[in-house]
């Protein structure tokens, strides 16, 4: 999704990681983690895609993803997919430990909370469900945002409610997904923030799509883009 729709997010993530001292490799064979197929109940097809992911990334030391949902797919659901294939399962377990969501990588692996960013705006943060509940990520992005010069963070209420994307749910239950998005943007607009920040491009697409349809000037940005700002 980043590759095709939000390339700036990928570039921003690379810039920040380089700034912190890492050298970046982008294995060109990568395409997808298979989550859409898995969530739609097509496990055989998901396995096909997951095997491709394993092949692509197996040799890598550390894999960082600008997405809570993709990371959770690999670290929490690949094992489920290959329950009955011990050899592949072993490869999955070996890989799982080397995959991180971007914000967590910075705080927990790089041990960094200040990446020298500057973004003098009022922002609010949207906790994507996979990052929040599957990966337990709540503090890391906030600690990173706290060190962005000039940035004011306002929390939205109610907090921690799903934006309504849910993968194919967004189109299969479009009206319902839209209603959930509208409830989310009401909460956003209440904060008065001009920017919504999140860890997940899928949430950002849903939220920005709803904001745009509502004619709101509020925009969304991935955390990487905020951290890359100077």
């Amino acid at each position, binding site marked *: 999704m980043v590759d095709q729709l939000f390339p700036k997010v990928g570039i921003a993530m690379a810039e920040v990681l380089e700034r912190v001292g890492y050298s970046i490799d982008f294995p060109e064979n990568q395409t997808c983690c298979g989550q859409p197929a898995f969530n739609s109940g097509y496990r055989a097809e998901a396995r096909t895609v997951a095997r491709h992911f394993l092949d692509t990334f197996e040799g890598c030391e550390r894999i960082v993803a600008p997405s809570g949902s993709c990371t959770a797919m690999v670290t929490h659901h690949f094992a489920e997919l290959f329950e009955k294939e011990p050899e592949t399962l072993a490869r999955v377990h070996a890989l799982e430990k080397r995959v991180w969501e971007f914000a967590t990588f910075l705080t927990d692996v790089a041990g960094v909370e200040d990446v020298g960013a500057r973004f003098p705006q009022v922002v609010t943060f949207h906790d994507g469900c996979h990052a929040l509940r599957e990966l337990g990520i709540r503090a890391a992005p906030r600690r990173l945002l706290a060190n962005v010069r000039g940035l004011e963070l306002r929390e939205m209420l109610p907090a921690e409610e799903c934006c309504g994307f849910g993968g194919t749910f967004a*189109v299969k239950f479009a009206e319902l997904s839209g*209603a959930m998005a509208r409830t989310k943007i009401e909460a956003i607009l209440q904060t008065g923030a001009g920017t919504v920040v999140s860890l997940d491009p899928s949430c950002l697409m849903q939220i920005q799509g*709803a904001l745009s349809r509502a004619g709101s000037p509020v925009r969304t940005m991935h955390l990487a883009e905020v951290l890359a700002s100077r």
Partner: protein
Amino acid sequence: MSVEFDQKIHDTLADANLQLAIYGSTARLKQGRIDRVGELPDYQELRTQANAIKKHTIENLDYYLEEFERNVEARGGKVVYCKDATEVADFVLGLAKEKDAHLIVKSKSMTTEEVDLNERLEHHGLESVETDLGEYILQLAHEKPYHIVAPALHKTRYDVADIFTERLHVARETVIEKQTAIARAVLREKFLAADIGISGANFLVADSGAVAIIENEGNARLTTSAPKVHITVAGIEKVIPRAQDLATFLKLLARSATGQLLSVYASFLAGPRRAGEVDGPDEFYVVLLDNGRTKLLPDRAKRQSLYCIRCGACLNTCPVYRKIGGHSFPWVYSGPIGAILTPQFMGVAHEPALPFASSLCGACGEVCPVKIDIPKILLELRSDVRKSEAREKQNRLEKLAFRGFAWLVTHPALYEMAGRIAASMAPSEDGGWISRVPPLMNLPPVKAWLSQRDLPPPPRKSFRELWRQR
């Protein structure tokens, strides 16, 4: 999805008043839970304990049912196993005939809703009156419950006024306290005249042969204490090993359900009244209902569905339930728990779209006091739906599409090409988000997306193209 499901969802979303009622009521219940469990320093340990007790019990269900049965009978009660709705009705009707009973009072029981007990009894000329206020209102209105714990969540005081005026022939009354007083007066007479009281049970306590019933109104106490005959109808999964386990479950149940520390009344009832006790029933029956529960036992992951203590927390926190409400669901159980129970009881073909009516946000699993991994079960059920479709040769186009997707993304060069083609076809505006696309691109998913929100403009260069240029 079925036309019916789609229509019900649409109608609920379109009803602005209903949206406010559902969202507002569940907001209060949701916040109540958050506040009360926040006050429990050992909340997570209690959840772990509750899960462990349920897991152990369900894995040894036959043993605990037999222990329960022995102890009920030791106290002078009787246990009746019923495999389905018909057997429950037959038992109650048979007993009513034996006792020459005509009037039955009932306290709240989702299990009896499951088997349409009232309808069956009424069909045979018995009067069976719901005594929980919300259930009573719905009985008068001929409706099913809207929520596991707050059955009349969707009714305003004006709805209630209409129902009472029409069905009870009283003067129109819109003040809630007075409406409650009307119901209280009518039902008091019923309690005192009833021949049989039928209740549900929150827990069946194996080591005691007792049923535990949690409530706030007092109608369950009256139902189980005033008439001479008391029948409990409960699913076989309600059993717990010991009375002492109630210390764990009672702490979790009210806090999770309504944000109370404890419900107003918790009754622990073991058999008919003992010698010397002044009141209480002379006869005590417990109906143990299967009705498909045994179908959920074989699968290790799915059998967790039977741990449910019917607190309703998952409903209150579910962003989907809070928009589509209880009546959009095809069966008596709604919300996330309904979404996993229904396909398992009724078969996935009953409503194949049901496991997909979720964004998999995981809030339900997070609040479940017995730690049922609801999202995991939803994912398993989705896979079951696809397997069923494959067998029945249904929905082949979608399956083909996903096969195609899997093929494409395992051929990176082709994937990249496809991306460039799609991007070139999309309308290039000033970088603003897109509200409409040319007909060629307006495939069903695109159309569905655009019905609710805009699409991002495809970037001039994909990430991999930008990366190569660095």
